[in-house]
Each structure stands twice: as C-alpha cells, then as structure tokens.
C-alpha cells in the first residue's frame, strides 16, 4: 500500500476531528464524540492485553474504577489536581494489575477470563462496602469555581473533547509502538502459542504482566477522565461487569489485535446505542436494548473477525 497516501488520509482525518467541535457547537454531538473517544481509548487499552497478548480480560472495569476513584479521592481529601490524580491513578492501576496478574495469569483461556470476572466483582463489592470512599452512595467531585485549568472541570464540552481525543491518540500511539517493538512480537507469540513461546525462552509470565500493566494504566487514565467529565462516580457506574464486557465487545466488534479495530468498534457501537435509544427508547419495554443486542449479534455472525477483517479482505481483493 502506498504509505504517503495513508499518511495524508490520517492527517485529513485528524484535521476533521480537530475542527469538529468548531462546526458542531451543540453539546449533544460533542458528547457523542467524547464518548466515542473514551470508549475507543478503553477498548484500545484492553486490546493491548487481549488483542496482542491473547489474554481476554473481563475485569477491566477494575482499572477504570481505580483511575476514577484515585483522582477523586485525592482531589477531595488533599485538594490535589486531577491531572496529578490521573497519573497517580494510572500508577496505582499498574500496581494493582501486577498483584491481580500474579495469581490470575496462572490460568489460561476461559479460566483466565472467568477469574477476571471474579476479581471485578470482588472489587466492586468491596467498594460498595467501603464507606470512606462513599460506599454505595458514591462520590461527588466538588465543583470548582476558579475556572483553573488545573481543576480539570470545564463548562464547555470542547475542552473535554480535545482531552478525550488526546487520550485516544496516546492509546493508539502506545499500541503502535508496541506493535512494532520486540515486545509486541513476544506478545503475539504468547497469544498464538504460549507453550511454544515458553519453549523458545520467552518469559511468558513476565510479558503477560507487562501487557497487563500497559493496558491497566491506559484504562485508568480513561477512568479519571470519566470522573472529571461526569463529576460523580459510584461503584455502579465505574466498576460494573457490564462496562468490562462493553469494552471487550467494542474491541471484538472492531477487530481484536489490530490498531484501528477498537476505534472502529467504538465509532459504530456508541452511535448505534444512541440511535436505538433515541428512536426506540422510552417505550418502557427496553426495545432499544433488544435491537442493540440483536444488531451486535448480526455483526458477530456475519463478520466474526470484526470490522477490520472485512476491511482487510476488501483491500486484499482490490489490491
């Protein structure tokens, strides 16, 4: 494929994304875009561990919640800027991921996935019962009236838009770097055949932990962003199993183990969720969710490799 063309296309896409909030000044379209960026970031982060290293986690809400809770607790108790809280959240998520990974990576395949669900449930239950961090009532982030950039609170969604876009670009850049690095090859070797990778002398456990650390850190950044965007968090919104599954679903639908798959998945699923909610919601019978679920099933039956597989097949046919 001619490289300059892809590069130009990327620049044009980036320019369009940067000018989007200038054209669409209403909050709603900006909100949809922000959520696409946020979920794409989360799915991209998940993809590092699951797509490249082959370890399907269904407990990533834990890292999202870690990011959200860490920055929120720090701003409430110490008045620390959420920007620093964001980094602290990522650091704590990395530490937590290593503690979780140590026992859980002894399991393989489905058993690993099941264990991550269990960890997610344990953490959520724990947070519901931990009163110091709000328990089941959750935490409000105190409204900042100074308007300082350090407070990470903005009246205008435009600023959130650019921050979310920045997070997404960071996640994509990290994935790209890993994809092309030696570490990325070790990840893929582990994904394709863990025993063969071990027999070649690749320390499998160590590289799984690394993939988990990167994935957890990026997910936690998204968690802090979410907390500052919504300004309220509770275990039901930042630690549910449904979030872990949604992250997985987005990546799988877009195409796991590919750079752009998670972004494509988010760009389809988030608006799809919105559309079914707007046009079919409000009946009180959850028809929107039925249709939403049905459409997901259609996509996975027609294109099990994800949208990226479809795109790659098309390219092979034309090229």
């Amino acid at each position, binding site marked *: 494929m001619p490289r300059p063309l892809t590069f130009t296309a990327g620049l044009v896409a980036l320019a369009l994304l940067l000018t989007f909030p200038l054209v669409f000044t209403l909050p709603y379209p900006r909100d949809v875009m922000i959520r696409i960026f946020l979920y794409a970031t989360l799915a991209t982060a998940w993809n590092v561990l699951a797509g490249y290293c082959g370890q399907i986690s269904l407990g990533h809400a834990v890292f999202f919640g870690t990011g959200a809770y860490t920055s929120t607790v720090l701003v409430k108790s110490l008045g620390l800027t959420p920007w620093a809280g964001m980094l602290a959240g990522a650091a704590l998520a990395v530490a937590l991921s290593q503690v979780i990974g140590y026992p859980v990576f002894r399991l393989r395949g489905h058993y690993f996935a099941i264990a991550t669900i269990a960890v997610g449930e344990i953490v959520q239950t724990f947070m519901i019962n931990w009163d110091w961090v709000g328990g089941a009532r959750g935490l409000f982030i105190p409204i900042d009236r100074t308007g300082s950039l350090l407070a990470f609170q903005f009246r205008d969604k435009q600023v959130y838009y650019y921050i979310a876009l920045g997070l997404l670009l960071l996640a994509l850049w990290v994935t790209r770097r890993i994809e092309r690095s030696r570490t990325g090859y070790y990840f893929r070797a582990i994904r394709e055949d863990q*025993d*063969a*990778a071990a027999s070649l*002398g690749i320390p499998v456990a160590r590289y799984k932990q690394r993939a988990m650390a990167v994935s957890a850190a990026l997910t936690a950044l998204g968690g802090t962003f979410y907390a500052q965007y919504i300004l309220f968090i509770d275990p039901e919104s930042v630690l549910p199993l449904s979030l872990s599954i949604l992250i997985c679903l987005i990546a799988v639908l877009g195409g796991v183990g590919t750079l752009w798959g998670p972004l494509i998945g988010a760009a389809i699923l988030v608006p799809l969720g919105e559309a079914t909610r707007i046009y079919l919601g409000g009946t009180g019978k959850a028809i929107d969710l039925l249709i939403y679920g049905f459409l997901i099933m259609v996509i996975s039956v027609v294109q099990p490799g994800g949208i990226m597989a479809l795109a790659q097949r098309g390219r092979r046919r034309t090229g």
Partner: protein
Amino acid sequence: MSADALGGTALEARGLDVLYGDYQILWDVSFRARRGEVVAILGPNGSGKSTLMNTLSGLVRARSGEISLGDRRIESLPPHKIVGLGLAHVLERRRLFPYLTVRQNLLLGAYHPGARARREETLADVEALFPHLRERQTQMAGTLSGGEQQMVAIGRGLMARPALLMVDEPFLGLAPRVIEQIAEVLTAINRERGITVVFIEQNVELALRMAHRGYILESGRAILEGPSADLLASSEVKRIFLGH
C-alpha cells in the same frame, strides 16, 4: 563419531518422578546425554517420552529428581532461564506461530540476550542450513507444508544458539523424502556444529540409525538404555515394538 570420542555430560537427569495431578507419568527415570552425542528417546504412545522432554526443558516440573545441564542444576529453573543456559527444545507438532512470517518465527527463537546480540549471524547460519526458508521468509508460517514447518521449528530452536537441541518427534506426519532431509539436517547440526541432539521418534530403525545411543520408555519407566547397535539387536526391543 564413535561414542568413545565424546565429551563429558551435557545433560543429565536422575530419579525423575513426574505427576499430572495425582496421575504419575514418569517413575524414577534417569537420562544422560554426553557432549556431541545424538540420543534417541523411544517408546510406544503414552510411555512418557514427551513428558520426559518437557521436564528436561522446564516446561513441566518434576515432583522429585535432579536435572543438570553441564554442571548447573536446572530442575527448579523456569524454562526461559534454561534456554539461556543453552538448551533449546522444539516442541511436538512444531507449534509455530501460524500468523507470523517465517522470518518472524525464526527471530522469536533468539530471545535470550546472548542469542539476540548475534541474531543476524545465527539467522544467516540457519538459512544456510535450510536454504528453502530464505525463499519463504515473508510467508506466513501457517501456510507452509509440514516439512517446511518442521524446518522452521528446528531453525527457530537453533536461533537460541543452543549447545543442546531437543526435538520432539521431528518426523511426525512427514513424507519419506522429507524425513530423509530432516534427518540429514539433524545429523549435520550434530557433526558440523557440534550440537548435542536429543530427539523422540516412534520408528525404531530410523531413530537408531541416526542416534549414537537410545533410551526406551515403557509405561513411564526407562526400561532399556544403550548404544544403538545393542538396542537394535535386543530381543527386548523387538518385544516392545514388534510384539514378538
């Protein structure tokens, strides 16, 4: 090379007991390969050949027993450390990474720092051994023929620059002509590069023709051991493999 001209012990195991859960696979198995030797591990299906090899390379932990590589005890080391000490293991059924290219598969064999530093040099050496692989370098490994895949698997093992190469069933499912090629390469690896070779094979004649010495496993016990010629003549071998 005659057995007398061989060097000291390359790999030795004593009294290995291996269990999967409560089920014992190996019973008090001892094994030895001298430097520069070609050793065959023989035995019927389910006799524990692969388990023995997996235990030697650290993929499976023994319940009890000792394993030494040269003068280092390795029974409690993880596999990646063992590879770094010069023991490479080519797994049964080749276990390539099917969606990576031939070249990428080979390069992944050079993990440990010593091998990584001399990667290009080793790669040239491996490609000289298997000229065919150079032509296929950008092809996905999963699309190769069985014989080619076995060459990649052996090549990938050699990329670790081992002093001892273990190959689990190198001839499994291959055409007779390809078997000859692989056998020649394994012999060349041993003679020209001085690498100790340990391999598993079901075909007694073929295995003992290639090997200096052989071990025969039956139901998890090493029941017979000796120079190839002695084993070929042994009535016990005939009993186990031919049912006489």
